[in-house]
C-alpha cells in the first residue's frame, strides 16, 4: 500500500510539475477553444448552437497533449525497467500513471470546460452536466490515451502516432458526451448518452491497464 501511494505521489508530481503540467493543458485548451469559433463563424446564434460540442471536442484534443511523455520518459531513463521488476504489478503501475495524469490535467480541464462553453454562448444550465461529462470522459481519455502512449513506446514518431491510434478510440466518448449535452440544451432526456459515457469510461478504466501492461512488457522485452 505504501509503495502504491509513493508511486502515486511520484506520478502526480511528475504530471503536475514537469513541462508546464496543467497550465500547459489549460493554455492549449484555451487556444483551441479560441480558434474554433474563428473558423466556424462568430455569429452568436451559430456559436451558441455549437458551443457545448466545441468545448467537448477541445477537451479530447487537449487530452492528447501530454500523452507522449506518459510512458516515454520512464522508458528512456530506465525507470520503467525498475518498475517492472518491483513489487507492484505493471498493470497497477499503468493504472496509477493514468489516474495521476487524469488528476493533473483532466480535472483542471473539467473545471475550464464549462467556462469556455458559457463564453462561447452555451446556456449556463448546461455547465453542471458539461463538468460531469468532462470529469468522467476525462477518465476515458486518460486511460485510452495511456493505451496509445504505451503502444507507441519505442516508435520513431511518438506524438503523431499516438494521435492517429487514439483518436478513433476517442470517437465513442465524444459521441456520447456531445449527445448528452445537445439533448440537454434541446430539452430532451440526456441520461442515456451520459450513462453510455459512464459505461465507456468504466470499461476503459477496467480493461486498458491490462493492455497497457502488455504493451510495456512488449516494449521492454
Amino acid at each position, binding site marked *: 500500500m505504501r509503495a502504491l501511494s509513493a508511486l502515486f505521489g511520484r506520478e502526480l508530481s511528475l504530471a503536475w510539475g514537469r513541462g508546464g503540467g496543467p497550465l500547459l493543458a489549460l493554455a492549449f485548451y484555451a487556444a483551441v477553444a479560441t480558434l474554433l469559433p474563428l473558423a466556424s463563424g462568430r455569429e452568436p446564434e451559430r456559436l451558441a448552437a455549437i458551443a457545448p460540442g466545441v468545448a467537448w471536442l477541445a477537451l479530447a484534443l487537449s487530452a492528447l497533449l501530454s500523452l507522449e511523455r506518459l510512458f516515454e520518459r520512464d522508458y528512456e531513463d530506465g525507470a520503467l525497467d525498475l518498475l517492472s521488476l518491483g513489487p507492484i504489478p505493471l498493470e497497477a503501475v499503468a493504472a496509477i500513471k493514468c489516474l495521476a495524469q487524469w488528476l493533473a490535467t483532466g480535472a483542471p480541464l473539467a473545471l475550464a470546460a464549462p467556462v469556455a462553453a458559457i463564453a462561447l454562448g452555451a446556456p449556463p444550465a448546461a455547465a453542471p452536466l458539461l463538468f460531469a461529462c468532462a470529469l468522467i470522459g476525462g477518465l476515458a481519455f486518460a486511460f485510452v490515451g495511456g*493505451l496509445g502512449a504505451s503502444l*507507441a513506446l*519505442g516508435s520513431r514518431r511518438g506524438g503523431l502516432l499516438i494521435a492517429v*491510434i487514439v483518436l478513433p478510440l476517442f470517437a465513442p466518448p465524444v459521441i456520447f458526451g456531445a449527445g448528452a449535452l445537445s439533448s440537454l440544451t434541446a430539452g430532451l432526456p440526456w441520461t442515456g448518452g451520459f450513462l453510455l459515457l459512464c459505461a465507456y469510461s468504466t470499461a476503459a478504466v477496467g480493461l*486498458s491497464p491490462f493492455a497497457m501492461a*502488455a504493451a510495456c512488457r512488449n516494449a521492454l522485452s
Partner: protein
Amino acid sequence: MIPVPAFLANPQRFMVFSRWAAPMFGALAVALIAAGLWITFRVPEDYQQHDTVRIMFIHVPAAWLAMFAYLCLGIASLLGLVFRHALADMAAKAAAPLGAAFTVLALATGSLWGKPMWGTWWVWDARLTSVLVLLLLYLGYLALRASIDDETKAGRAAAILALAGLINLPIIHYSVEWWNSLHQGSSTFEADQGDRLPAVYLTPLLIMGLGYMSAFGSLWLVGIRAEVWRRRARVLSLQQAGG
C-alpha cells in the same frame, strides 16, 4: 486450438497449401464476381430505386468484407499474441491493408448510392460514422506497425491495438438497430420475412458476397506468402552479411 489454424500453423504445410489454394480462390473469385456482375446488369429495376439498386451488389459485400477482414485481423492478432506464432502475426499484417481497401470501397460506393437515394453524400449517423472509425482503426494499425522498427515488437503492439479496436465491430453491426439511422436495417439473413430481399436480388448478392470472400481469401494468402518470402530473404541477406 482451432482446427484449421492448427493445421496451417506449420509454415511448411501452409506454403504447400497456399501455393494451390491462392490461385484457386483467385479463379473462383473471378468467376463468381464476373457471374455476379453479369446478373447485376440483368436484374429488374427496383420500383423505387430504379437503376441505382445495382450499386447494392458492389456495396453490401464490400461492407461485409470490411468487417470480416477486421474479424480475421483480430483472431490472427489474438493467436499471434497468445501463441507467439510468426505465421499468425504475418496473417494479421496481410489482412489489414485488404480490410482497409474493402472499407474504402464500402464507404465510396455507399456515398455514391446515398447521393441519388438520400440526397446527400454523407450523413453523420451511427452506421456511417462507425464504418469510418473502422477505417481509422485500420489506418492506425498500419501506422503503428510501420513506425516501430523491431518487427516482433511492432507485431505485438499492433496486435494489442487490433484487439482494443475489436469493440467497434458489434457497434457497426448493431448500429442500425440501436440508433435511429438513415441507413436501413439488415434485409438479408436476420430480417423478418417481410423486410427480406426477394430471391431475384438476394441470389446475385450472395454470389457477389462469395466472390468477394474468395477474392479476400486469395489476396490474403498471397499477402501472407509474400511476407514469408520477405522474411526469409531478410534472414538470408543478414546471414550473408554476417558470414
